[in-house]
């Protein structure tokens, strides 16, 4: 695998995580300020943008590599999102949640490499 593809996998993963965090932020803002506020619109549009970036990067990667090679990296998104939510969104991450997320990640990686 060329270093550029490796970089692309990580950019795609980062874009997916960023997209989910932004959508979560947007939907929380919609609770307080409704759907017409900037506090909702800005993270919502940015979130959709990042998920779109991830979609096309992923499509491009799938054209060059097997799904079973690309997919395990997506399994990592579970554990990354759990930690990112704790750090960026100040959600409470218990040890139990972290262990659960790690097992789910491990399971997805195992399913996709086997």
């Amino acid at each position, binding site marked *: 695998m060329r270093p550029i593809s490796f970089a692309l996998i990580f950019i795609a993963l980062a874009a997916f995580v960023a997209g989910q965090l932004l959508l979560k932020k947007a939907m929380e803002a919609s609770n307080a300020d409704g759907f017409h506020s900037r506090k909702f619109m800005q993270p919502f549009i940015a979130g959709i943008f990042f998920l779109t970036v991830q979609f096309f990067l992923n499509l491009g990667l799938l054209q060059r590599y097997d799904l079973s090679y690309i997919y395990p990296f997506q399994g990592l998104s579970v554990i990354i999102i759990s930690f990112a939510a704790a750090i960026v969104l100040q959600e409470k991450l218990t040890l139990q949640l972290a262990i*659960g997320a790690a097992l789910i990640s*491990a399971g997805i990686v195992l399913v996709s490499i086997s």
Partner: protein
Amino acid sequence: MPMQNKPSGFANPWFQLVLSVVFVTIYELLLKRGAMETAYLMDRWAWTGISGLASLYVWVGIVLIILSLVTWLHVLRYIPLSIAFPLSQVVHVLVPLCSWLVLGERITSPRWCGIALVSLGLAIVAKPAARLEERL
């Protein structure tokens, strides 16, 4: 906390989370069916997957993709991401199970182990989720 004023009934975010993963599971199966149905329509644009649009399965799948996004956004309004996202990964159990039961695909034993690991992780995440619900 973003959990105040949690709606009940159809708008209950836990129910919407279940709907969301059911939609994802069904659209994955529909897209597979639709893709197989249109695989013979090979031309020089085949790599884009665009020929899949000739299948009705794919169009129903697209509707379900949109519905799954809408329900997921509703989930995000009320449930912390660090709980909702791991739980949504139940699709990695449901999709292989349904491809086995409905599409008749074979599942190798390492893959069964992976599915078991995901299930175990889900069970562990489900406990804090249940506590979160009690606090309301």
